[in-house]
């Protein structure tokens, strides 16, 4: 189906079902119950899952296929956000032109940075991209204040010219982003017994775009172009002597992944129309590297998993404060309760990144292929068990 083989179609359909039913899947606990804080099915976080999923899918096209580790991808995300907000200020509150512009501007930006950075490979390439991203960040923060509004960040105001649309909405406020009249923030709620499910228009727009982005990534992975990108990673010498010019291939991959980042940035601004320079900072660039490696670089689904994982930690673990911990350990005697809270305290709340760091280390050390490799190992374990049950002779073969 859609020009994909059976396995890829299945994968695409699974991802489609998961994203479409995410409001249910991510809300397994009844609202108001003690576990409700682990629910991730609220619009803001779900949007982040899929937007950063797009970002990581794009990054994986560059890093996973060609092996070129860019440390400056957040620059494209930031450029995409700024472009989108400017589109909202000047043209219309419809998200479509904003998203299109952010993809184009990020693509052009990636073409320029890629053209210079791809003259080097390995660590030098990483440093060059990092330098460019930090340069963009510094410019956005200071010199380019007329365009980026400096440290305050670019926001909508009541005096925006907005050619197609009104500067002020009917109720006197700033108009909200919409898709042909459907407001991005509009959310339908569904009460099912104690459960509360939220269906947000903005989330579904992001989810559909992520599915398109994912589908395109699968096509690229399976195409002759994708094969050439893997050849770049594997052996550039042989590639050269096989009559292939590696430069345009890597540059094309760089621009494509820059456009994915621009799309993600445009969507971030479409969901919440503001853009700040910190979106371009090196920590943001590092985050997408972590997502891709955590999920499994070079795999199709890995980056999406990694993005979801990190965003879940960032938003859910960071909310567990001492009060919550005390309520968890309340059944223990007082002294023991305090001790447990003291032990767990550094790993949750503000210390969520410590837990994430430990998990990242564990994954890199024990599962170099990321979470996807973990999934495969578990899958293999089950299959082997089945084989052992079915044919007794198989039990004699040594494990790996």
């Amino acid at each position, binding site marked *: 189906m859609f020009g994909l083989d059976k396995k890829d179609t299945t994968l695409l359909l699974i991802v489609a079902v998961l994203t479409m039913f995410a409001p249910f899947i991510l809300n397994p606990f009844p609202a108001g119950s003690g576990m409700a804080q682990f629910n991730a099915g609220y619009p803001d976080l779900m949007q982040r899952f899929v937007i950063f999923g797009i970002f990581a899918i794009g990054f994986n096209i560059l890093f996973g296929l060609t092996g070129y580790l860019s440390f400056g991808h957040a620059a494209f995300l930031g450029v995409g956000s700024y472009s989108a907000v400017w589109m909202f200020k000047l043209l219309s509150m419809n998200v479509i032109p904003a998203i299109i512009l952010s993809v184009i501007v990020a693509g052009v930006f990636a073409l320029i940075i890629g053209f210079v950075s791809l003259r080097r490979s390995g660590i030098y390439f990483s440093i060059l991209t990092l330098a460019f991203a930090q340069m963009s960040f510094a410019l956005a923060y200071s010199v380019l204040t007329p365009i980026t509004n400096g440290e305050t960040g670019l926001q909508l105001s009541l005096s925006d010219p907005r050619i197609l649309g009104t500067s002020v909405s009917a109720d006197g406020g700033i108009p909200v982003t919409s898709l042909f009249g459907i407001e991005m923030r509009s959310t339908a709620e569904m009460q099912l017994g104690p459960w509360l499910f939220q269906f947000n228009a903005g989330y579904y727009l992001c989810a559909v775009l992520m599915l398109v982005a994912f589908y395109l990534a699968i096509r690229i992975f399976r195409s*002759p172009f994708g094969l050439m990108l893997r050849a770049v990673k594997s052996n550039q010498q042989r*590639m050269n002597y096989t*009559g292939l010019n590696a430069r345009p291939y890597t540059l094309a991959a760089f621009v494509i992944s820059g456009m994915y980042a621009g799309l993600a940035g445009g969507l971030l601004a479409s969901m919440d129309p503001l853009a700040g320079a910190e979106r371009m900072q090196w920590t943001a660039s590092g985050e997408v590297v972590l997502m891709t490696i955590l999920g499994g670089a070079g795999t199709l689904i890995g980056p999406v998993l990694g993005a979801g994982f990190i965003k879940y930690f960032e938003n859910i673990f960071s909310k567990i404060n001492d009060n919550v911990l005390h309520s968890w350990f309340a059944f223990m005697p007082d002294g023991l309760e305090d001790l447990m809270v003291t032990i767990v305290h550094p790993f949750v709340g503000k210390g969520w990144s410590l837990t994430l760091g430990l998990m990242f280390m564990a994954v890199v050390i024990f599962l170099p292929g990321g979470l996807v490799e973990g999934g495969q190992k578990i899958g293999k374990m089950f299959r082997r068990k089945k084989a052992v049950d079915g044919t007794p002779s198989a039990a004699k073969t040594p494990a790996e």
Partner: protein
Amino acid sequence: MGILEVKDVNKRFGGLQALGNVNLSVADNTVHAIIGPNGAGKSTLLNCLVGKLIPDTGSVMFDGQSVLGRKPYEINQMGISRVFQTPEIFGDLTVMENMMIPCLARRDGSFRMHALASVFSEKALRARAEEMLAEVKMLDKRDMHAASMSRGDKRRLEMAMCLVQEPRLLLLDEPTAGMARADTNNTIDLLKDIKARGNITMCIIEHDMHVVFSLADRITVLAQGTPLVEDTPANIKGHPKVREAYLGESA
């Protein structure tokens, strides 16, 4: 005039004269071997032919066109393929994917943005790749990871990758270096088959005299960056100067 004409090529590395006035003419559809002791400049010469190095002076003409100043991928597109001393293959890919890359390069040129097509739907190229794999007796290994194969298999895969491009000139840099006797003999047989198919010129750099004398039509002996003699294998064997310079025997 030969398909490959090297004229007055000089190459210095600092104080070392790696190549001094090298003249070489490789005739069409022959196997030309270049032999010489270590440091004779064989590999330097080869690197000058494929665009990795640019000679200080002199000219290198392939089929009437100069190769100097061209990038390795451009030279390959002209019809020169190269087999390396240690097999250079795409280790992360399967054998079949390894074969598809030269097939695609041959059809699409040095760059083509073929991002939404599928490798699996390239039926004609796949058939061509499989045919070539069958020819080097590796069809059963088509789905293997290239890096996990033995060195002999890697070498055969590399040759298959070069041959599937149907080059006019195949350059081989010590194709049997570090191989067991059996693998060496297999390689010789393979090269003989290739030669028998015709329409290909081969230029071999080799240490193993057994390989050289069983394949070459003509032999050039290099010593200290300069061609000593060029002749048929039979004449080279008995040449006193060669015995002295290369075989290390006193005449």
